[in-house]
């Protein structure tokens, strides 16, 4: 199973086209308030990660996800 860093790397890859220009991505980047992702873009991000890792990511995890780190950690927990 992928580890935390693999999830992180992939999240960065998927986020690049979504994130506002000029903003540097890091683990503590906040998906909505900092990177400016709309709710539709968050959904798109989730779908792309599901397909890449061939896993299910329930929407229920979203209220606890604020940063890129939170997301990578949640994926690791879902796919131990």
């Amino acid at each position, binding site marked *: 199973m992928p580890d935390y860093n693999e999830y992180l790397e992939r999240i960065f890859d998927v986020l690049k086209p979504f994130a506002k220009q000029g903003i540097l991505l890091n683990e503590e980047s906040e998906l909505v308030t900092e990177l400016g992702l709309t709710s*539709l873009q968050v959904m798109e991000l989730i779908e792309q990660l599901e397909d890449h890792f061939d896993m299910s990511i329930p929407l229920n995890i979203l209220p606890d996800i604020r940063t890129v780190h939170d997301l990578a950690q949640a994926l690791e927990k879902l796919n131990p």
Partner: protein
Amino acid sequence: MSLFDKFQPIADIQADLQALGIMPFGAVTEKLLSSTEAIVNGHKVILAGTNNYLGLTFEPECLEAAKNAIDELGTGTTGSRMANGTFAGHVALEKELAEFFDRKRSIVFSTGYAATMGMGSTLAGPGDVIVLDADSHASIYDGVRLGGADVIRFRHNDPADLDKRLRRLGDRIDNTLIIVEGIYSMMGDQAPLAEIAEVKRKYGGLLLVDEAHSLGMLGDHGRGVAEAAGVEDDVDFVVGTFSKSLGSIGGYCVSNHDQLDAIRFAIRAYIFTASPSPSVIASTRAALRLMQERPYLRDQLWANAQHLYDGLKALGLQVSPEVSPVVAVTIKNRNQAIDWWNRLLQRGAYVNLVMPPASPTEDSLLRCSVSAAHSAEQIDRIIEAFANVQNTPVAN
């Protein structure tokens, strides 16, 4: 920070609109002239943004049934179905719905929202899985969130994507509920239900279909997309509303699963709300009967849908992907959509303004809908209003 801070973006939009003198989300229908014409915000308009698909809101039989019910039973039940709110009419409507859908069991709810929210929140709970179409209605999202099941979306109207997501579930498929709609309310597109049913047959799970916008429109009996696609046996639960083709308010769920009788008493949206008032039940029963007696209304509705769709498409507007009683015109720029909505109203056509997040994409929509009761001349006037707005400069 205060509790009110999060509402500021909404307040800002309201203030912008108020400054322009435009109130798209507070339009007041001052007088109904018929099922297709009204006075809205002081303008005489053709109603091209209602869900009165069969035009039954002023049918004499429905009016008389409602009036008689008020005289005989009063204005309201004053209680929930589980307490004092089950009248003979509620039971009769449940029986008639079950007969109409050719299902064993049925439940009547106080609104369509309560039906979808109630079923979605009750059928699947913690530890269960719900796989739903990404463009599902807010009432479905609200319900599944409340229920606590793991919620997974599949791409809108994409059976191959559903297949992929069901495969990933493995053994969890045994406690999985799949939720789709028949016709989607914003774009008017139909679910590919035959293919979705095929995926369900391949993996398992239960299937719930919300036929809110398809009741009375599709299928030999008007039972909706499931009937039209010939897959009613694959659909475990059909939910829907009385507030569109039946012209009243309320909702229903029908099923062949005997367990529905027990499920009824677990649905909080059924238990803890007052039951529909007698007049609502009476007019709904009359409308359900008329819908069956007058299949030609379906033909009129689809002829009108084709007429409006062709007319708006010919203007070069970006219309929904397929012909449907809901014809959505996509307007990318929000301010342009607001401006068009306002000028359409002034030119005698009332349509629905839909902005994100209510629209399925980042674009805004001018959502039009037709009724069987529209005349061809009225449809022409709606098209003419769009042409007029399109050909005049944008207002400041």
